[in-house]
């Protein structure tokens, strides 16, 4: 097999070819227009746009569409590529949602490791006062990269959960638009390459990229803007596909209120992604134009009389947070859905208040659109806005509470068992509780005037994101691993992972919050010994390393168990969900015959009830 037959390799060649061609075109255009040949902003932007297109052409994500424009029909290809080993399909364009789901999930896990390593680098620097090995400029780049790489990893992880599971859970053969699905995955890859290249040039504003600072620094900013814009495009296309799939492709008998609960969470998430993502795309595009073309959107410019005839820095913050607040629910709603999905299976008891849990996801998503200003209490906007955003933000706590209480109701009176996925689910609840409860204290504006931009906020959002995404993502990986590979993971290693990571994380969160209340600002390369936070900082660093180590144990477990794990059978968890009624690993076409839904999804303990009926087959 030639290496060049891998789509990924062809894509990367296309990327660098596109980069060179694009840069050359800009240089030639500039010369033709009588400008100097080299302007790094313009040349790089032109080069990178062309590089991303080059990647997509190289990998073949648009081949079918291009053929259609020439009137050539292309049947949907199934199965591994002809004449190549089966694993190669994961490295090229493949239209099967299960392959795409794995591609998303594994890329997400890869980025989690990369983003996490960046954090370990600067956490090592912070373990003690004094600048030791990271100069402040490099520190700022690592810090900023950590955030966006980690956020990209979450978006891809969410894509992995959604793409793999939604069609399986609603008994569909695939997503509504398989080619769009593959395209939406593959545009992430050149975006990630672009994001990583930005490190060579550096950028130092943190993920929020507030102007005017983000208008000043090195050309690395342009790469970040373009990368995030492209990842955003993937979010929009992917969520559109998911919404259509869930609304149009459910089997007979599956009303909306009989969908597996995870689908509700994905539906709410997709509504946010489809609508809010445009705002960050727009905001970053405007920054890009302001840098490369000098259009004054955000930076004030004064005329001779000292009147501002330029832009308004705060405008950017509104645009940015109008996406980035709802985005935090994109990160956590699927995870909360995983918690609600797994608890009934391990409690052997119906999900408490299914409709309330389902609708609370929608409520969180909708209220989440109205709270963005809580990130701007100190920004200098009109003071009365603080009151508006304080009240709307506090309201989010209500549907969030409904979820917690319903989870407790699900556990109460069950027959609980505790394999690794259940442990991670319970860990997720405990960590998300820390994160959630530290939210209202930031929402009452007065307290936030102190806490804003301190380590308290760092503690808050890491706890929400770990509790709402990372822990449930790991629970999901362990839980569906036998369905994906046909084999069980190693339970001992799974439990070891859990018992290292969970206490490590509790410690890290609390220590971060302590540092914040003692006056430690966030995003600083070094801190004043007079603050007295050295011990706390050292604890955070140690806990960070423990968490990282435990994740390596998981990755080892996942790799080795695929070969040597015991065979899992169709339904090791005795779940009622459709995907567990078919063989593991799932066959190419998932369901041999269409399924129909004949009952409630979570009627554990109700004798004689069933959820799924397989047409023609007698077993249940």
């Amino acid at each position, binding site marked *: 097999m030639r290496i060049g037959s891998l789509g990924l390799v062809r894509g990367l060649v296309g990327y660098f070819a596109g980069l060179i061609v694009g840069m050359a075109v800009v240089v030639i255009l500039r010369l033709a227009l009588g400008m100097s040949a080299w302007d790094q902003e313009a040349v790089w932007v032109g080069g990178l746009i062309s590089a991303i297109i080059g990647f997509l052409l190289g990998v073949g994500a648009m081949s079918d569409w291009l053929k259609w424009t020439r009137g050539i029909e292309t049947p949907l290809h199934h199965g591994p590529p002809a004449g190549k080993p089966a694993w190669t399909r994961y490295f090229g364009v493949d239209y099967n949602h299960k392959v795409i789901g794995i591609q998303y999930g594994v890329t997400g896990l890869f980025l989690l490791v990369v983003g996490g390593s960046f954090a370990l680098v600067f956490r090592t620097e912070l373990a003690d006062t004094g600048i030791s090995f990271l100069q402040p400029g490099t520190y700022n780049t690592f810090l900023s990269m950590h955030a966006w790489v980690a956020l990209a990893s979450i978006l891809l992880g969410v894509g992995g959960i959604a793409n793999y599971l939604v069609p399986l859970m609603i008994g569909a053969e695939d997503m509504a638009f398989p080619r769009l699905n593959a395209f939406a995955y593959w545009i992430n890859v050149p975006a990630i390459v672009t994001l990583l290249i930005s490190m060579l040039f550096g950028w130092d504003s943190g993920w929020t990229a507030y102007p005017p600072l983000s208008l000043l620094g090195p050309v690395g900013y342009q790469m970040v803007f373009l990368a995030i814009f492209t990842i955003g495009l993937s979010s929009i296309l992917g969520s559109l596909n998911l919404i259509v799939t869930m609304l149009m492709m459910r089997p007979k008998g599956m009303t909306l209120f009989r969908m597996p609960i995870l689908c509700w969470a994905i539906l709410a998430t997709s509504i946010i992604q489809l609508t809010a993502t445009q705002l960050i795309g727009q905001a970053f595009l405007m920054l890009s134009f302001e840098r490369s073309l000098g259009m004054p959107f955000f930076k*004030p410019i004064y005329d001779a009389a000292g009147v501002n005839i330029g832009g308004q820095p705060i405008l950017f913050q509104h645009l940015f947070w109008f996406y980035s607040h709802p985005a935090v629910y994109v990160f956590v709603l699927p995870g909360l859905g995983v918690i609600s999905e797994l608890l009934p299976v391990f409690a052997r008891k119906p999900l408490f208040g299914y409709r309330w849990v389902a609708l609370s996801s929608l409520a969180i998503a909708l209220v989440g659109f109205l709270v963005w200003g809580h990130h701007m209490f100190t920004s200098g906007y009109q003071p009365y806005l603080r009151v508006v955003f304080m009240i709307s933000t506090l309201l989010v706590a209500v549907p969030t509470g409904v979820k917690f209480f319903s989870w407790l109701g699900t556990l109460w*009176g069950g027959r609980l068992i505790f394999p690794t996925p259940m442990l991670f689910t319970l860990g997720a609840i405990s960590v998300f*509780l820390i994160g959630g409860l530290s939210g209202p204290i930031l929402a009452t504006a007065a307290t936030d005037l102190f806490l804003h931009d301190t380590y308290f906020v760092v503690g808050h959002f890491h706890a929400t994101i770990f509790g709402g995404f990372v822990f449930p993502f790991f629970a999901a990986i362990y839980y569906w691993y036998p369905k994906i590979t046909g084999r069980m993971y190693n339970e001992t290693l799974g439990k070891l992972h859990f018992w290292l990571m969970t206490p490590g994380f509790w410690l890290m969160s609390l220590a971060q919050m302590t540092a914040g209340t003692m006056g430690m600002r966030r995003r600083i*390369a070094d801190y004043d010994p007079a603050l007295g936070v050295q011990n706390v900082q050292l604890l955070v660093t140690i806990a960070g390393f423990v968490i990282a180590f435990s994740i390596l144990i998981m990755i080892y477990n996942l790799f080795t168990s695929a070969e040597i794990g015991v065979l899992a059978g169709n339904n090791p968890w005795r779940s009622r969900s459709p995907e567990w009624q078919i063989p593991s690993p799932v066959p190419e076409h998932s369901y041999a015959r269409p399924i129909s839904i004949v009952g409630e999804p979570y009627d554990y303990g109700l004798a004689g009830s069933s959820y799924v009926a397989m047409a023609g087959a007698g077993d249940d």
Partner: protein
Amino acid sequence: MLKLPQSYSDRKHFLIVGALVAIVTVALGFFLLAILPIKAQASMQAEPIKWLFQLHLWLIAFLFALVVVFMLYALFVFRRRKNDDSEGEHFEGNTALEVIWTVVPLVLVVIFSFIGLRTLQDATSGGDEVQVKAEGFQWSWAFSYPNGVTSAEMVLPVNKPALITLQARDVIHSFWVAEWGPKQDLVPGMTTSLHITPTKVGEFQLKCAELCGLSHWSMAATVRVVPEEEYTAWMDAKLAEQNLQTASR
């Protein structure tokens, strides 16, 4: 009314859990107060912030105890025993309970909105007997007083309401003296302000709280709060010194 399954109607469980929640709430409340020692305490505006912060900690302690005690109790009591292959109780939910745990938090939200509003007013208002302008730029601070005195450190008389006006010369910065409580951004193209009435004499550090580039971490200035006589003396000396400078130029 739906018949409750045994685990829900058995009073014993709820008495035990209730008692545990009460104990854990108190213990956790004191634990949180100890590990989250909020630094704001040296200005009139810091007082309400600290008060509300600690009120929140008690609510957090209660809610955390409520969820965690219920959860741990359930994990222990309702765990599957050896050789028990039965399923859990079939119980799909209870609308009355759902309404309760929607409405009670809603009432808490109303209460905290009200308290939050009052606290916000107290934490952001004050007089302007003393006025200082603070300018932030990459990566330092400069202060000036209405009488034309300029200074690299900020000096304020204790117990006098001060109005600090804020201007940024290049990018966004944020004015924060942790001991004073609130912070406020400095935004290019705007003038923002902060009311502070310092109540403790001493030397504090003003630090920039908004990432502003390479040396953001070290963008600080000294702030001195002094008795009124000392303030007047300092101002007189500054006036004399700076008039001298102008004269000798």
